[in-house]
Structures are given as C-alpha cells and as structure tokens.
C-alpha cells in the first residue's frame, strides 16, 4: 500500500430505531402509510450515511402488537435494509417493546457494539393508541438504560386516540411528540423526523449548550408547521369552535 493510499476514516455508528405500533387499530391506511414512508426514507438515510464522514447511520426496526419482533437481528445500513411490510393485528404491548428495546440498547448482546464506538441513538416511536400491557414497568427498565437516557427520542401520535401522556413519558417531553391527523402528514413527518435525526450529528450548531434532543425538537416542530395535519403536541391548537381568521 502506497503512502498516499487512504482507508476510510473510522466512523461512529448512529442507530436510528423505529418502534412501530402494529396493533389492530393501525390496520388499513395507517400501517400502509407507515410501510410506505419508511420504505421510502431508507434510501435517503442510506445516502446521508454514505456521504457522511462523521457517522455511519444504521437502522433498526421493532414492531410490536401482542408480541414484539425485530425486522432484522442487527442494525442495517439504509441501503441494505429491505423493508418487510408490517401488517397490523393484535394488542399494543408497548411495555414489552420497551423491555425489548432495553435489551438491544447494550454493547453485550445488543446493537451498540460498533468497533469504532457509537453516537447516542435516535428512537422514533409511532403509535395510534395506548398500551394494553404494563407499560410503566417496561418504561422504568428502559429509563435506567444510559443509551436510552442519551438518545434522541421522538414520538409520532397517529390520530386522536394516541395516548399523549404515554408518548410524553416515553420521550420525556411533550415537545418531542408530533401529532398527525392524516395519512399524508404521517408520511411526511416520518421522513422529516428520520432525516433530521440522522443529520443532527454532522451539522453545525448554533449553540453548544443546547442538546441534540432540543435541536431536533425545534427543527421538526418548525417543519411540522408546513405540513398540513401535523403539529407539535406542545403547540396550542385552536379549538374547532374558535375562529381567528380576522387575525391572519
């Protein structure tokens, strides 16, 4: 090997987790949109990773209903992740999903054992309802996990039946919960959140004392303003009875 020959610089791994509620109520266009949106965002994430000298971005996906299942048994690069369509049926075992995520947020036997080390992961939770199992004890386990503590955590609440309190508990703040009211908004927000979370580590920041979690929250809240049918759960939504047209 000549002295000018280079090897790629070692890159830390950033794992992007999708936690997908595939309970019975997600059946139909909701789960169809989730499938479609993730399938379409994977090549974009692959590209972000490929061009990125700072981080290698890998994707892991956990589907949960009555049971839980990882789509692959290791995080994959966006370009190698062949999306297997998720079908909806059963209950909403979010507590069990938390325990399962906790197992994988670990270096030994988990997903966090990259030889060049990792960045804190990003976790995107999608749900349209409330847990049907013991969510609290599952979340309690997860909340002791250092990887989870440092992770960027964003939730997408699909429709009005999503349990906002549960999603707030999972992400740690209401600002990290985005509410979507239609299929188009769901697709757009999946893409925006996945891309924003993947890029955050390799962008210049405007303040060193602002956490990546806050930066992602601000960016997606801002982006949600341009997506009809999406809003930050923390933003005040006008009541249907009130009309503020004259103030426009």
């Amino acid at each position, binding site marked *: 090997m000549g002295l000018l020959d280079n090897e790629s610089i070692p890159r830390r791994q950033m794992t992007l987790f999708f936690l997908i509620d595939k309970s019975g109520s997600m059946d139909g266009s909701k789960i169809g949109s989730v499938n479609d949106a993730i399938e379409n965002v994977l090549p974009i994430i692959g590209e972000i990773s490929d061009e990125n000298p700072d981080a290698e971005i890998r994707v892991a996906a956990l589907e949960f209903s009555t049971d839980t299942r990882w789509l692959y048994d290791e995080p994959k690069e966006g370009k190698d992740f062949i999306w297997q369509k998720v079908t909806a049926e059963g209950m909403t075992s979010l507590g069990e999903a938390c325990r399962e995520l906790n197992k994988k947020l670990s270096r030994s036997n988990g997903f966090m054992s990259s030889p060049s080390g990792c960045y*804190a992961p990003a976790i995107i939770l999608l749900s349209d309802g409330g847990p049907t199992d013991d969510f609290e004890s599952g979340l309690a386990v997860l909340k002791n996990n250092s990887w989870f503590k440092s992770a960027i955590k964003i939730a997408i609440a699909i429709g009005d039946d999503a349990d906002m309190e549960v999603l707030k508990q999972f992400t740690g703040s209401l600002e990290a919960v985005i509410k979507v009211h239609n299929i188009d908004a769901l697709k757009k927000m999946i893409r925006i959140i996945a891309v924003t979370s993947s890029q955050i580590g390799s962008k*210049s920041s405007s303040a060193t004392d602002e956490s990546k979690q806050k930066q992602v929250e601000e960016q997606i809240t801002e982006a949600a303003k341009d997506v009809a049918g999406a809003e930050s759960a923390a933003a005040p939504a006008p009541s249907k009875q009130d009309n503020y047209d004259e103030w426009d």
Partner: protein
Amino acid sequence: MQELKTGDKVNLTNGVQAKIVKELGRGGQGIVYLVDLGGKQMALKWYLKAPDNKFYKNLEENISKGSPSDAFLWPEYLTRKEKGSYGYIMKLRPQGYYEFGQYLLARRQFGSFEAMLNAAMKICEGFYKLHLSGLSYQDLNDGNFFIEPQTGDVLICDNDNVMPDGRKSGIMGKARYMAPEVVGGKAPDKYSDRFSLAVILFMLFFGNHPFEGSRVLACPCMTETFEKKFYGSEILFIYDDNKENRPVRGVHNNVLRRWPAMPKQLQDAFKEQFSKEILSAPDKRMIEKKWKGVIQSLRDTLVRCPKCGNETFVSDSAAPVCMNCGKLLDLSGKLVLGNGREILLTPNTTVYIDDDNNPDIKVIPVPGDKYPVQLQNVTKKNWVVETQSGKIKSIEPGACVPVRTGLKLSIGTLKFEIQ
C-alpha cells in the same frame, strides 16, 4: 419552507433576474440551484428559512467587499427578499472537484504529495487573506472544501457565515472541528478558525482526526457530555507527550503509516499547535503565514526518487533515503538561498519557489548531454544566470539551466546558488 421550481425567476438587488434551471443539492439550511443569469450559468443558494436581517446585511457587506482570494466560492449577488425567503448567487463548482469528506471516506485520494501540499497551501492562503481583510470564517469544518485531486486546487464554500472578526454569526460550529474554547461556550473568532484550520490540515495530511485515539475510541457512546470532554475540557492530541490517546492499530491506520514518513518539521508544527499550552492559548496559535512557511519547507524537500520514481520527502540531504524504496538516492544538486533555505533537486521534480501553487522550475533529465540534469524555466518571466566566471545570461520561459555547482540563478527577486 420556500422551495423554488424550475422556471421560477428571482430578482437580484442589482435589477437582474436569475432563472431557476434545476436543483443541484440541498443541506440543512437551504437548497442550491443551477440558475441562468443572462446566459451565464451560476449557482443560487436559497435559504429554506430566511435568516434575519442582520444576516442579509452581512451578506450584502461581504458581496461589496468581494472575495478575499480566488480560493473562495464567494457570494457575488444577493436576491431581493421575496418568495418568503432570499438567497445569494455564486460561481458554480467546476467539474473534477470533490468534497473533502470524499477524501476522508477514501473515495478519492490525492494523485501526489505535490497535490496534497498544493491543497494545504491554497487553504492556508485563503484563510490568510480572509483574516487579513478583518473577517473570520466561524464555522470551519470538513464540509467547506472542494478539492481537485490531481492539482490540489481548492475551493472554499459556505462563506455565508463569514463575519468581521468579533461579530457573532450565531453559529458555533460543527462538533469535532470546534476549538476547545468554543466547545466551552466562547464565540468563534479568527483564533478558533486557526484551531479548525490546523485540524483540517492534519486530516488532509494524515487521514485521521488529531484528537481521536485510544482514549476517545474507548468511549462507547459519544454523548454530548463526552463530546464536551474529549473535544473541549480534556482535549488530548494523539501524539502528545501524554501517551494516553495514541492512534490504534487497525482503526487509525492512515496516521500510523504516514506520521513516521512525514518530515519532522510538520510533526513538530502539529505537536506544538496541539500541545496543552497552545490549545489553551488561542492567541498563540500559528498564523496562516507561518503555516505557509511550513508547507513551503516541505515542498523544498519533496523530490522524485530516481530509483523507484515515487515522490519522497528527504529529511537529511547529506544521507537522502527514499521513504518508499528505502534506498539511498542521488540528489542532482540543490538551490541554496542566502537565508539558508535549500531546495533539493532530482530529475522529474517540480519546484515551487514562492508560496503560490504555480510551478516555477521543472527539473528535467537530458540523457547524453554534458549536463544530464537541467532546470527548465516554467515561469512566465526571464531568469538571470551568472556563471562562476562572471558571465551573465538570460533564461527565457521554456529554456533550461544546467544543474551545475556554482551557478547563480536569479528568479524574480530571489537569488539562488546551485550546489
């Protein structure tokens, strides 16, 4: 979010219209479009979210000041505030230039050490001129450079955060490239630019990050807290006297191979710049002019090995050894300047006299001639040669001077003796 479409027209402040041809790429802040400007193709950077008026004013100022050097893809025209945002026009990136990241990812590599040194020189020259005009870049990182691999020519992009030194752009910078004091919360300035510049130069020469060794590698998860420690409060150079953060075999292979091969003056420059003392004293960091001097001294010792044909740095001209084939090599001679500067000569070596990237001398082999190695004038001006007997001769561009001990060669204002 205000995206533009093909065919849209945006109005520039000078009254001209730019027509959108197509999207060229997008980043976090905005989209770059190919635009037609009265028949000329240019690039438009269009902000997705219009930054505030201060930012607009600053762009306006930079445009009227003009580019500090030809290294910059500088903003040339500003659009009016319209269509919910604004943008600026700059030159297009020419074909054959690749992002520095592509080099770090080993998708591209320099064609020669000569090109690598040219790239380093051009980067230093760019920031030298930028700082000289009272500006600071503020967000220097690996994403700002496009480099041509064969010539080492460099274009510096993303010049929209450039501000008069001392004025805050609001951008702190990118993790791993921010100076430790900026990681600690201080606003960026020309001194922090100089830290980031040294990091970029190190990565350009050695292909690894100067502060990522065993200690940083051992950290399982680079959280924000650890980032503040390893790139801020406890930053430690991989070749510091404190050996706790040395490069790791199998991971940091580029620097492990190249560090021992590169000349001592380069190693010393980085050891000093990344020492605890200088890291914590921003105003003592090396100025760009001095970096240019370091690069020039590397150039002076870079020759082509007559045995294996590869480029090599020669650290000891009394016993010159090729860093590739390991054999002793024959120097044809050297050019010696009054101040002690020595430029080593072998056939097929290119010589740079000054600190620009235009070659001045080609050392050419002339087999069978009485003087089998000669210096060809590849400048645009005549040289003057004085023989030992006092004869004066003018050497026109393209003409040659033999490498003969005792000849005195004047190139511009510099007077060399061939030894």
